[in-house]
């Protein structure tokens, strides 16, 4: 009996060991190494490019063309930029122009280019208790300040959060004074869920909203199409002269890839089949 038990344990352990060593990365890695040696390229980007599904399309295309393995770290723009200034990422795809300019000025990022844009929209419960439907953004924010309807903020130093703070500030409003100002500290997807659940208003990028619309229930676009609501994405390299261990070539290739005509076509077509409209737009020039 004891021997049987012992042998069972042994078999179990062996099974674990073989499962660990055989099935997974080892064999795959070996196979990859035989074909070509791929170097890692760390891309720090915003949650919106991942949550909308755009990167699931772009990254495989890039990997097909260039010999790199892209490691996409989807975080808030604040954290992505911080990773850039620390030299923990090779290339950045973010959407907070003002904050980006700062790290370009400080020399942490170089080779910065506009990639695409979409827009921010103010969304809220279909019943619209604050009465901001169809109102321009500036006025909408004033109205939201006056009403005691909840406003749900990202509160995570992301590009969207920065934009929201900028909108309050431009109106000379202080959100800290607003009643029912909810700060989630989470990504756009989760924040939309909280807003829908609490019947509150929030600022979101259009791509994430469209991707999530079906799970939000009675939740609609309230204000859109304002110049102040433009959401611009830039790509940039982390400066290899300022930081060690940067994959300089890979970052350069990625920036080049994002400007490529074929990539641009993919971006402008993205979302049309699934949502009936494009999620990101290109600059004319």
């Amino acid at each position, binding site marked *: *009996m004891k021997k049987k038990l012992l042998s069972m344990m042994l078999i179990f352990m062996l099974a*674990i060991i073989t*499962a660990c060593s055989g099935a997974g990365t080892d064999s795959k890695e070996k196979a990859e190494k035989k074909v070509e040696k791929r170097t890692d390229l760390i891309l720090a980007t915003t*949650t919106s490019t991942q949550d909308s599904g755009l990167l699931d399309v772009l990254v495989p295309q890039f990997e097909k063309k260039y010999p790199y393995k892209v490691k996409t*770290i989807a975080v808030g723009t604040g954290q992505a930029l911080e990773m850039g200034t620390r030299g923990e990422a090779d290339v950045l795809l973010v959407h907070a122009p003002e904050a980006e300019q700062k790290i370009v000025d400080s020399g942490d990022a170089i080779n910065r280019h506009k990639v695409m844009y979409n827009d921010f929209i103010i969304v809220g419960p279909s019943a619209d208790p604050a009465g901001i439907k169809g109102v321009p953004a500036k006025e909408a924010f004033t109205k939201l300040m006056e009403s005691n309807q909840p406003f749900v903020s990202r509160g995570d130093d992301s590009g969207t959060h920065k934009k929201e703070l900028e909108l309050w500030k431009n109106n000379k409003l202080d959100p800290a004074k607003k009643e029912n100002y909810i700060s989630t500290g989470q990504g756009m997807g989760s924040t939309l869920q909280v807003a829908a659940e609490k019947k509150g208003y929030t600022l979101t990028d259009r791509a994430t909203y469209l991707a999530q619309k079906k799970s939000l229930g009675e939740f609609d676009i309230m204000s859109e199409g304002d110049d102040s609501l433009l959401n611009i994405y830039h790509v940039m390299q982390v400066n290899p002269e300022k930081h060690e261990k940067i994959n300089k070539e890979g970052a350069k290739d990625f920036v080049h890839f994002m400007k490529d005509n074929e990539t641009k076509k993919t971006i402008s077509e993205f979302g049309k089949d699934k949502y009936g409209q494009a999620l990101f737009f290109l600059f004319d020039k």
Partner: protein
Amino acid sequence: MDLLLHGLKKAIEMILEGDPEIAEITLRTLEVSMTAILISTIGGVPAGILLGLSRFPGRKLLLTFVNIGMGLPPVVAGLWITIFLWRSGPLGDLSLLYTPVAIIIAQTLVSFPIVTGLTAAAFQQLDEKMILQIKALGATRWQLLWILMKEARLALLAAVIAGFGRVIAEVGAAMMVGGNISGETRILTTTIVMEVSKGNFEVALALSFILMAIAFLITFCLTYLQQRKRHA
């Protein structure tokens, strides 16, 4: 309620269709968690036995640390490991951040103290008179150890089960040190978090059923092992 049923249906669909991505994520989860618990067991059990049986200066302090470690929040472990593995960090040259190895390190760090602590407690509970008696009967050290391990078998496996529970449930550290990279460090728990944030509750639920099924299967095996001797 509908959502739950849909989720279950979707989970069964995913398994039956053999969705390659799901299969890959599931395999990776198993691989990473099993490796972590294996390391914790191989290292933690002897450490626990040592802490439980022998007496040496500083032992109580060490035990205190182990016991604190049992409650070490995974995100704290994750944060520390991230800082160590950063390119600019002390272990940056190994470029382990955002690899499955980093997740294994994190999971080992949070499960090691559990295995060690529970093993130590189990061995301390053994009757000292029995130990004396075994020694008196002329057992060698290894024979003594073997007998004691069999004696504490129930508690030992309980320690492994508890450690495994921690490892398979862990998400905060895996997210931080792994980065939830598609095809590389995406495991079931981090995928669930991502799908929830995408609003794909159905997929998230389906994955949660798969995760629960795995946890059940493995815990069942371990429990079976643990309870087996009772009938002998």
